[in-house]
């Protein structure tokens, strides 16, 4: 790989495909990028890592031409391209694949691929006869195997991603910048994506892989660039680089993934939650366990193992067909979510965007929505100041990064949105808190922060259930781990007496 640094005046043999030199960008006085110089060679797979707010998105937007830099320049093939329009950059072969893919859900997969292509060629009349083979060819190249005539709205996330990649390819893309491409993909789909990336990279197409999943970065990328607070803090080949070094460059501190120190709990403590013989047609059967006060219980298992159905069942979504639930020794008659709420059970869903948050409402409204009856004055009023004070308390306690509690939740980064969901449920003082994949899509620093919060709550006596795919996460925060398979609990392990490999083995046995 060629390395060149303009400040040292050492030029490489051929100009880099893309080079940004000393990029500066500020929004309303806040520096989003300062002096960022990066280079991408043809056929190179580069990782761009960084926490939320590190400047990754700003850099992508500047490369796409959607934003213009305050200072610095951008070269494509050694030619100054700083002042060119977004459309010209697409024509130069620079394509962004956004996290949401920017597809047209109402049009067929094929038309999504050929329509922008024909538009860029300034055709007045569309030609389906020309377009379809173009789409098909690009699609075959990346090994797509589904009906291109289906509307995009009916495709799965990974299929949509293939459409987005195919669309970029028909534009003769030479550089594909993929923003968080693996967030919503299964393990197998990620492997398929990586195979495509490797093949295309072999043909000389470059990739910038924006991610905060360090393991994936390590697997696919040849070089890593890390941004933190708008500055480049790391730019090194992947070979010989340790994950901890990347994490350090991202956060500026050492992020430990070691277990939290736990005080041994008294075995005779009355359980917060006891479930016996919970069953639900097709989903799970005869699930029994107890959860002590201050205990963190992990629930592991593959897709369809029933782990999500069980925890949702305890929250009444829908209630189990049979079985008993006791909270603090009192039997709970569970007919709906309202009964679960009345028993102080809280459930934080995995999909915070659709199930957990009122995105357009303010942060403070989202936090206090579960605690309104407590905030009400005797006359039934809720004053703005009470609401604000309550919200401020939680924003401080959970370290939610925002300028004002009155901003909409949609203005926050993923990690901070997840904290708002947590704040809402914690503010309601639950006895039992169920977290479904609490750190999906949040960066390494926020993840660690959320783990700290879980530990604090447990220390206060809340019983916590964590459902997660992330075994290191479960090993880190849990006292006990239950493994589910085909709707039944197949194993129970105390974390201090078990190992990740052992639990991994139990989890994946069902796959065989």
């Amino acid at each position, binding site marked *: 790989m060629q390395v060149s640094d303009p400040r040292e005046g050492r030029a490489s043999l051929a100009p880099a495909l893309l080079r940004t030199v000393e990029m500066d960008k500020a929004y309303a006085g806040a520096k989003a990028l300062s002096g960022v110089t990066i280079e991408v060679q043809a056929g190179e797979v580069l990782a761009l890592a960084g926490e939320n707010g590190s400047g990754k998105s700003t850099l992508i937007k500047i490369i796409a031409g959607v934003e213009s830099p305050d200072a610095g320049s951008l070269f494509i093939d050694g030619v100054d391209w700083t002042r060119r329009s*977004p459309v010209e950059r697409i024509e130069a072969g620079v394509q962004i694949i956004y996290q949401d893919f920017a597809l047209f859900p109402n049009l067929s997969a094929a038309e999504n691929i050929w329509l922008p292509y024909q538009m860029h060629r300034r055709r007045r009349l569309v030609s389906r006869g020309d377009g379809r083979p173009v789409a098909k060819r690009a699609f075959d190249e990346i090994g797509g195997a589904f009906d291109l005539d289906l509307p995009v709205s009916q495709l799965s996330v990974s299929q949509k991603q293939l459409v987005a990649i195919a669309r970029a390819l028909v534009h003769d893309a030479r550089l594909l910048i993929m923003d968080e491409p693996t967030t919503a993909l299964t393990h197998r789909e990620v492997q398929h994506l990586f195979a495509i990336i490797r093949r295309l990279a072999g043909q000389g197409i470059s990739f910038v892989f924006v991610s905060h999943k360090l393991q994936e970065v390590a697997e696919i990328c040849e070089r890593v660039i890390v941004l933190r607070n708008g500055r480049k803090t790391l730019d090194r080949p992947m070979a010989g680089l340790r994950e901890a070094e990347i994490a350090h460059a991202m956060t500026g501190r050492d992020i430990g993934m070691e277990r939290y120190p736990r005080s041994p709990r008294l075995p005779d403590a009355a359980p917060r939650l006891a479930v016996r013989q919970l069953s639900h047609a097709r989903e799970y059967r005869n699930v029994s366990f107890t959860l002590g006060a201050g205990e963190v219980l992990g629930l592991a298992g593959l897709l369809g193992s029933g782990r999500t159905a069980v925890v949702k069942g305890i929250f009444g979504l829908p209630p189990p067909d049979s079985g008993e639930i006791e909270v603090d020794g009192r039997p709970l008659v569970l007919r709906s979510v309202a009964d679960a709420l009345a028993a102080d059970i809280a459930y934080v869903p995995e999909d915070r965007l659709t199930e957990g948050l009122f995105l357009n409402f303010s942060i403070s409204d989202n936090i206090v929505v579960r605690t309104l009856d407590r905030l009400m004055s005797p006359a039934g009023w809720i004053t703005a100041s009470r609401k604000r004070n309550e919200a401020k308390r939680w924003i401080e306690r959970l370290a939610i990064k925002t300028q004002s509690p009155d901003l909409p939740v949609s203005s926050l980064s993923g990690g901070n949105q997840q904290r708002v969901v947590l704040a809402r449920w914690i503010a309601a003082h639950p006895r039992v808190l169920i977290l479904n994949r609490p750190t*999906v899509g949040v960066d390494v620093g926020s993840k660690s922060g959320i783990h700290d919060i879980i530990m604090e709550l447990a220390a206060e006596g809340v019983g916590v259930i964590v459902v997660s795919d992330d075994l290191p996460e479960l090993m880190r925060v849990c006292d006990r781990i239950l493994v589910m398979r085909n709707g039944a609990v197949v194993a129970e392990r105390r974390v201090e007496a078990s190992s990740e490999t052992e639990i991994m083995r139990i989890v994946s046995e069902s796959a065989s």
Partner: protein
Amino acid sequence: MRFRDILLRHEVLIFLVLVLLAVTVGTINPVFFSIFNIFSLLKNSTVIGLFAIGFFLVLVTGGLDVSFAAVGVTAMYCTVKLAVAFFPGAPFIVLCAVSAVIGVFLGLINGLLVTKLRAPSLIVTLGTLSLFRGFLLFFVGTDVVRLVPQSINDFARTNVITATAANGAHIGLHASVVIFVAVTAGVFLFLRYTTLGRSFYAVGGNPIAARRMGMNVAAIEVFAYCAAGALAGIAGLLSAAILRLANPQTLVGSELDVIAAVVLGGAAITGGRGSVIGVFLGTLLIVLTNNSLIILGIPSSWQKVAIGAMLIAAIGLPLLARRRSLAGPSSPSEDLAVVTSS
């Protein structure tokens, strides 16, 4: 599977409903199948149909323009007033063009307000509906013009096909039907075969993606409002020509039928989905419903009930069907991936 997909296409379903309704009504009262009735059915469809196509054009881009009736009546009344005062001898085609141009102008106001203010189009066009109509009644006039230009009277009597009924009466297919069919065909070709037409769908499907693809979203939207205005202007003038009088108090208030026709035709109220053929069939269904209830001697207040019920069925049934197909074991939203630190 393929056959089922075709059968479940909205256009096919609505066509079957249309045939079923026609056969039912025709069996009860054979008058329904007379040439006279079919011709008058088509003639009655033209105004609603042109409004519906205009409404549909904006809807495809994701907007809601409910001001079309106000635009139509304003363009029509201003055109007739102008013609009576200055060009009483102007040919019909010129009057049509003038009315369309006024419509484009009013549509431009709609489009600019929606794109510049970035306000919800439903609210903006509710505002302009009131604005245009109030402006018309206050500044232009409230009296019904009965002495319309001669070319309008001539057009009112123009038939393209003439048939002789059993009782010897001459029955003609009115010329306005030709305009309706021609506009339907033109818009169909535009939406299906031009890049601009496809970009209407793209903008309606995902405006942010359209912008990232380099489309000029605001210009496309303004164009849609202008086109809807032009069609509303022509529809307004045809409504006057059919009645041979210009009444500034008509049309506004009849929006429900038009919107119902578009939705029954399968267009998604959220934009991006639907076809002109569907709108055409939806229009026929609405007019047929109104017409057949009269033929069957059912009180006209039931027309509203029938259209309301069909509207709710057209929106509700696909939603129910989709919910049923989604039901079953919990959706596979969990990730298969199991991450290890090794």
